[in-house]
């Protein structure tokens, strides 16, 4: 089924089309959700909410841009909403992370060295705020100004959190490298 046809039928509430759309795009969006959440269960919740939003607002897709990009943006926004909702529950930072990352050297990593699961494990272990900023800046390519607006934080907070998140990620990747070397 062509993508436009699929979208049209989803707008009509066609169950078969909705199922097909889910089958087609859920792996991609699940990959995004996994990066933005601290656990797999949380990622599944975000994915479910994302698809409900997609089907609810599919009429709002004007067909001008990439449909995949539109859905990715919804998944990221859902993750941000989820982050805001959980902000009051999980707000802790490990002070030791800063002390050790300041002295780190500029890294050089080979993407073949790490599996997806290892990289996810690293990013999932970041404090929520750091993980959001790191994902949005490093992977999604948002600017700090956009991140500050979306997360409702100061632009300098966004920059600081990214630098700190980056240091933590580097340190843990180096630890992983050492583990691999052994």
């Amino acid at each position, binding site marked *: 089924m062509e993508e436009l046809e699929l979208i049209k039928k989803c707008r009509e*509430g066609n*169950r078969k089309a909705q199922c097909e759309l*889910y089958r087609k795009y859920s792996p*991609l969006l699940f990959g995004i959700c*996994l*990066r933005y959440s601290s656990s797999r269960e949380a990622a*599944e919740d975000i994915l479910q909410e994302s698809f409900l939003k997609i089907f609810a607002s599919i009429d709002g897709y004007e067909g001008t841009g990439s449909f995949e990009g539109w859905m990715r943006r919804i998944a990221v926004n859902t993750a941000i909403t989820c982050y805001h909702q959980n902000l009051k529950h999980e707000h802790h930072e490990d002070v030791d992370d800063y002390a050790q990352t300041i002295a780190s050297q500029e890294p*050089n990593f080979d993407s073949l060295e790490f599996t997806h699961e290892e990289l996810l494990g690293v990013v999932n272990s970041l404090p929520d705020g750091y993980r959001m900023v790191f994902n949005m800046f490093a992977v999604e390519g948002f600017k700090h100004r956009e991140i500050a607006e979306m997360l409702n934080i100061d632009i300098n907070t966004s920059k600081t959190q990214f630098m700190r998140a980056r240091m933590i990620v580097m340190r843990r990747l180096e630890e992983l490298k050492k583990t691999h070397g052994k």
Partner: protein
Amino acid sequence: MTTPEDLYREKFSGYSPEPPQELWNGIDRRLSWRRFFTFNPRTINIYYAAAALGAAAYLGYQLPDKHSDIPGIAAPMEVADVYEPINPVAGHTPTHATPLSGTITPIREFHDETSTRAEADSDNHAHSGPTASTSQSGIIAEHQPDDSANSTADRQEPIRENSNTRESLSDPKKNKDIKVRWGSQGFAAALEAETENGDLSYLWDLGDGGKAVGKKVSHRYAKPGDYRVRLVAFSAAGNFSDTVYQDITIKGTTYSITFPNALVATTSAAAFAPKGNIQELTKYRLTVYNRNGMEVFSTTDPLQGWHGYYHGDRVPKGVYAYRAACQFLNGEQTSYSGSITIFWEENNNLIIHP
């Protein structure tokens, strides 16, 4: 040199792990209600049909009595309900003369003098104003005198099947022809849609402003005349609609009875009893009162007359009041009231004064 951000961007570009299979079930379940209310040309007809039924109910259509199997006759008002003695005396039981003949028995068929129906002229309707609401059917009584038990047997109003004017929106291939069967008794009419399709809904415009819903309806008209009934039948799915016109004639009633205004109090002469269409009476109650309002005679048999006696003695000479509540075969209810002067006959002379 590969920085962490480059590493992640490269590694997670197009990263597509398979989500758990059961995740879709949760999404599907939560989408089911949304799907139900989503605009869909294929299901919108159901909404139209539901809205039409809702509007019909709101505008005051009434569902017909589904338990009725008697066409055309309104539920009769009990004579006892409309009739109250002017001044009943507690504990008093009037003396009844021996019934001359006949009994009142319940029946389930109705008779009418109107055995044929004039062809309705579509330009000659009698459009009376809005009338009584859709009536309910019920059991009434038929008077069957012993000496003329079969006198009304051949006067039953036939149920008709007439050719009718039709405006059809339907696909002729669907074979959903609808006919209107109807019958009338007096002011009451019964109508029924005849079709092989059992899944249709029916709206009736009864021609006098009255409306009804249902496959089988009955209605009481206020005035005699010709009426054009419009039946709209449609399927719940909205894919079938048909409008049928049927001209019907309401003949009303011509029944009446009369009472004498004077009587000689004697058992050998004629009694105080109604004359006229007494064979068409289905319910009847006659009560006579003296000048003090005391009940001196009461009967429910139109053939049972009053001879001017009370407790075995001639009543005093003078003027007595009477009241008779009647219901005829066509369902019409009437009450008669008046006065009767009682004479005594002595030595071949009529005596009115003491």
